């Protein structure tokens, strides 16, 4: 029986958490926040490789933009120094603004792509930016014991 969910609501009612997959950080470019795009084996039968890679690459782009060293970040830094850094108490930094965009993006991805496939992404900021946690749900009403039997067929609303 395919473990297919049409929305997050169904996920709540009939699913139980089977396992979690953790996407680790990729440090090949230094200490900037970047996640590995290697496709984990556990998701093999759940989601298309391209969708997953697209999600991780977009996240990496967002983080790269947040940590980008350029005109705007220097301006922010110099202004902060001139005001003895008090401005950080009043103003939301560019990094925080981009983190909000990332939350929205992850929420949207969960709703549109991952929940219909019985998966749930957790925002890395809630895990200290160490990992992207992907929770894999099983249909608790299903008699099949493993997720290998499910087919990641299209489940978008018609």
């Amino acid at each position, binding site marked *: 029986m395919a473990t297919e969910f049409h929305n997050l609501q169904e996920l709540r009612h009939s699913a139980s958490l089977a396992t979690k997959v953790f996407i680790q950080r990729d440090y090949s470019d230094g200490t900037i926040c970047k996640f590995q795009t290697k496709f984990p084996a556990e998701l093999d039968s759940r989601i298309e490789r391209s969708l997953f890679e697209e999600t991780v690459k977009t996240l990496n782009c967002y983080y790269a933009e947040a940590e980008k*060293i350029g005109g705007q970040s220097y301006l922010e830094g110099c202004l902060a120094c001139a005001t003895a850094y008090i401005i950080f108490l009043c103003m939301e930094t560019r990094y925080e603004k981009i983190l909000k965009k990332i939350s929205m993006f992850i929420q949207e991805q969960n709703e549109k792509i991952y929940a219909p496939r019985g998966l749930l992404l957790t925002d890395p900021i809630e895990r200290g930016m160490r990992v992207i946690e992907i929770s894999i749900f099983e249909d608790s009403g299903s008699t099949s014991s493993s997720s290998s039997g499910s087919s990641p067929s299209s489940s978008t609303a018609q």
Partner: protein
Amino acid sequence: MKNCEYQQIDPRALGTSNTRTPTTLPCGRKNSQRLRRKWEVFPGNNRFYCDGRIMLASQCGVLPVTIGLIFITSGLFFTFDCPFLVDHLTVFIPVIGGVLFVFVVVTLLQTSFTDPGILPRALPDEAVDIERQIDNSGSSTYRPPPRTKEILINDQVVKLKYCFTCKMFRPPRTSHCSLCDNCVERFDHHCPWVGNCVGKRNYRFFYAFIVSLSFLTSFIFGCVITHLTLRSQIVNGIIQAIQQSPASVVEVVICFFSIWSILGLSGFHTYLVASNLTTNEDIKGSWSSKRGEESGNPYTHNSIFTNCCVVLCGPLPPSLIDRRGFLPPDDAPQAVTSDTELPPFIAKNDTNMEENCQEFANSCTA
């Protein structure tokens, strides 16, 4: 046709993760328990004030001494030296002194009260996953995870160490502070004078503090010497001048002894900033040229100006520990104090550790 509406669901109902929004209690459950914030169950050795807004290391060291010295010296300066200098020189002296003083105090407080870049500890699921990844042999006896993992950064081999307390492989440049019992990103050192670790998030405040303190100390020292010199010319004798203004001697002594260390420290940190190094790396000689020409700092931008800009004016990442977030009422102790709750995970001699980990992981995901 099923109506596939994508409705937002509260992830807490799935029991998967902690969220940052305040918890609303499930309906039908009357609970008068006060919701706790995450700082109350923080596993590190830190103290929190103002409901989590301000944090300090638990061993705040000599921070009161630092504050006391700055206030006393500046107070004496403004009270006893400034009136004379305003009369005989210029009114800008207390103005400059005031600006420097405010800058020093503000940057000191920011260094002390800001999260230096603490990494939250790995949750049990993650810890088990890491263990599973490295223990591929599938043997039943427990083998502690290898302590290092090698990665390539800018074509240079860097070793990542496994932190047994935080249960994760430390990112590059991260170190575990034994005084605060936390892993801190871009760990520089634990400064007893400011009572906190100096790391990625508060290094710029620390640098601004020591540089402005050097200026303040030198400025006060210079002004007091000028004051005593001018006064001794008026009263024809240095002894009489000192008798008229004994506070100045106190200031001279404090400044004289401070200047050497503060100026030295500022110079040292200027060198570190220009080469994008941390005190920790410099002391350990991680990238010293003695080890061969291949070994160079992989994080440097190879330009003093760029390094300075990046370290001091780069984007400031937010705090990862979310101290003012609310704990979900159900799994409050489980997620955060995993190190105390896990059975002998810390003890390395336990041969049944792997079984315990598996059991614990199963109970987490149940």
